[in-house]
């Protein structure tokens, strides 16, 4: 599936879609969006790129195996889950910074948790899809 139009388009679509996925991730707590959808959109961005350029090219952009995103994501989520315990609060208590940060908004453990989900979803989707597509070559 080497089409010039798709190849050119995907070169621009990849960063835009990634940006969009990040946007979805950040706004999730207040408007439709969230880590899960964000992660799916980000993986679609990479899948689109792999359709245009071939999976091996996409793997080069990623540099690391998508599999390695899974433990990182799980680690971040678990960390945000247990962080309240450090302060002597029950596990999974929401902790928030007092003042919002410009552009991003309120920051709290929920966002950290969502980032973990985001990474796990990307890791899982890309691992499954790329493994299958590479093994069918």
């Amino acid at each position: 599936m080497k089409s010039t139009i798709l190849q050119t388009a995907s070169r621009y679509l990849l960063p835009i879609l990634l940006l969009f996925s990040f946007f979805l991730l950040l706004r999730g707590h207040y408007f439709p969006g969230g880590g899960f959808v964000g992660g799916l959109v980000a993986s679609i961005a990479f899948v689109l790129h792999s359709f245009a350029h071939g999976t091996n090219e996409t793997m080069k952009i990623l540099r690391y195996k998508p599999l390695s995103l899974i433990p990182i994501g799980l680690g971040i989520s678990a960390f945000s889950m247990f962080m309240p315990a450090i302060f002597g609060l029950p596990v999974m208590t929401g902790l928030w910074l007092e003042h919002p940060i410009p552009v991003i908004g309120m920051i709290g453990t929920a966002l950290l948790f969502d980032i973990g989900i985001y990474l796990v979803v990307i890791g899982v989707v890309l691992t499954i899809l790329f493994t299958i597509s590479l093994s069918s070559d």
Partner: protein
Amino acid sequence: MLFTVLLGLITSSLIVPFGRFVKTKWGIILAFIPLLLFLYYLQYIPLISWDKSYVQHIDWIPSLGVNFDLRLDGLSLLFSLLITGIGTCIFFYAKSYLKNDPYIDRFFGYLCLFMSAMLGLVLSDNIFLLFTFWELTSISSFFLIGFNNDHAVSRKSALTALSVTGLGGFFLLAGLVLMGNIAQTYSISELAEKAQLIQDHELFPYILGLVILGAMTKSAQFPFHFWLPGAMKAPTPVSAYLHSATMVKAGIYLLARFFPILGSNPAWTYSLMIIGGITMLYGAFHSLFRTDMKGVLAYSTISALGILVFLLGIGTEDAIIAVAVFIVVHALYKATLFLITGIIDHATHTRDLSVLQGLRKVLLPVAIAGFLAALSSAGVPLTLGFIGKDLIYEATLHSEQHVAIYLTVAAVITNILLVSAGFMAGIKPFMGTLPEKFEKINMPAKSLWIPPLILALLGVLFGCFPHIIGDWIAQPTVNSIMKVKTDFHLQIWHGFNLVLLLSALTIILGTILYFINKPNPRKLQWIERLNFIAPLTIFQKAYQRIYNFSTSYSNYFHNGYLRSYLLKIIIFAEVLLAYQLYLGGPLHINWDLLSAISVYEVVTVLIVFGAVALTLSTASRLTAVVATSVIGYGICLLFVFYSAPDLAMTQFTIDTLTVVLFVLVLFKLPPFLNLAKKRILIRDVVVAIVFGMILSMVAIRVLHVPTHIAISEFYGKNAYLLAKGRNVVNVLLVDFRGFDTMFEIIVLSIAALGVYSLLKLRLKSSEKE
């Protein structure tokens, strides 16, 4: 106290990375763990008195009443000392015994785990904690019994032991939970205060039965005894540890622990007396026919356990004193006999009693240990066994008038047989002339023969100075079982009385029996002819039936075809849903409640219909996939119309990715051919249409059910207040139900790992077997 339980657990997990260390000679350091614990518990001897116990309370899941409560009283102390004391001997012994075993690190890992589990069991004061450790002993003993896992027999006996004791665990759990619910507490010491409440409850017979069943399976009482002789396939140190002081005594411990709660009523007394009585006679009788040293010991262990249960059943003060002392007596001599069996096995490579003789000439210290242990088991004066036997007769003679005579006769017969069994294992191999083939045997390493010798000498030491055991160990034990202060002192000499006469009679008749009864393979064959009615055979037959049933069951439901799974799942759902719909009465649609249909919805639904038609009619696999995704997108649009943007977004992306996945997989599939027969096609069509109809009816029914808006109101109100988020869906995902999400992403990760390992780590065809 907590550290004593955790030490073994931590050690056993440290052995995983540092296993190589255990294989060097420095591995002997491990044996200092039980020694350390033993010394730790020794210091409690002067501190524990009849009403004083040490408690450590740690909250675990307080909302469910599951707490890590540890309590050290007399009974716990007795068992803790046995577990760690005998454990020390076993650890030193096993290090030499398994010196050349490539998996010795694993062995010590299991052993530490087992020791911790036993300690936890005897210390826990919460019934759930007790049950957890109870199961942990079953599991760790499974690994120990099946340690030689390259032998099929070994694996099988380990599995038998696990399934029997595991079954008992179920009974026990049920009994414990019932008890806890009645008394509204899960703490054992609080349960004891509410004993009357439990005993007066109508469910009491069931509770009693369930707890006794649990104890019976663990302590190898007839008819669940058969796992114990099978467990002799374990390496000898394991048999010595499990069957002298720990595993099988767990059931005895359980009964003693629950004596204040369930005991002292006719149901308890008679059931335990009957079970224990049958077991002690059965075990002792069977031990006569064995030619394998371990077989003799296995059946005499069963018999000794029977005696303990029997005494607990009698339940008088005399009987409980006898229990406390006999536990020590048995642990000391049985561990010794097992350990010398191991030495003999190592040196001569046989355990056959009809071959072994004259070994005293080459293994003198071992012979001394064996002699002393055999004398203690026979109850010869100046050994602890003598005092134990005296107490047993004392207990039976002073039980209720009308049964005293029968109980005494049963106890005497059992003991006569046990005398013979003890002599057989402890004296027989060392007597007579030494055969030529055994002349070249060298003395084993010191760490092999010193532990049994120490244990045997202790038996004599305590026999000469019985007040050591009596005042320091037995008295606190009896007090914590009886819950009242008792004052007794053990003595060597009680004067000439009926008990002494019975003791003398036992020893004389037992010795005569020993000389008459020569170990002979033919006798073994004779008793094995009765095997067809043995509980083991019944168990094996039941096992085979269950196995066959589950094989055919799995083959039918788990045949590996996705289409068959789907069909079965859908039909099952149809039956359930149809039944529910039938119960709900007639359906009717309230048109007033429905909103008007907009043109967007009509168009979307028409598109979906078109896509369905295309999916069904197309001959191309790819077209079918694309058409299905059109259906998905149509549904997404409907979500958008009904203001569920989060759902729609997720569904859109998922649909897209599913198509990609399909395309990637379809690439490899053969062309789309319709191979189905007409009959099967019709069946599938019927199932599909019925399912669709039922789901539509469910949807209509849902409209009638008054919605519980309390839940959505709660989330709507509190999403911002509690979790500072305006998007309720997301707040639910990351905050209110964050645990669910956490587990979901773990599941996702496992799925990805599964796909990855299935495809990437495929064995090359040359690597397949």
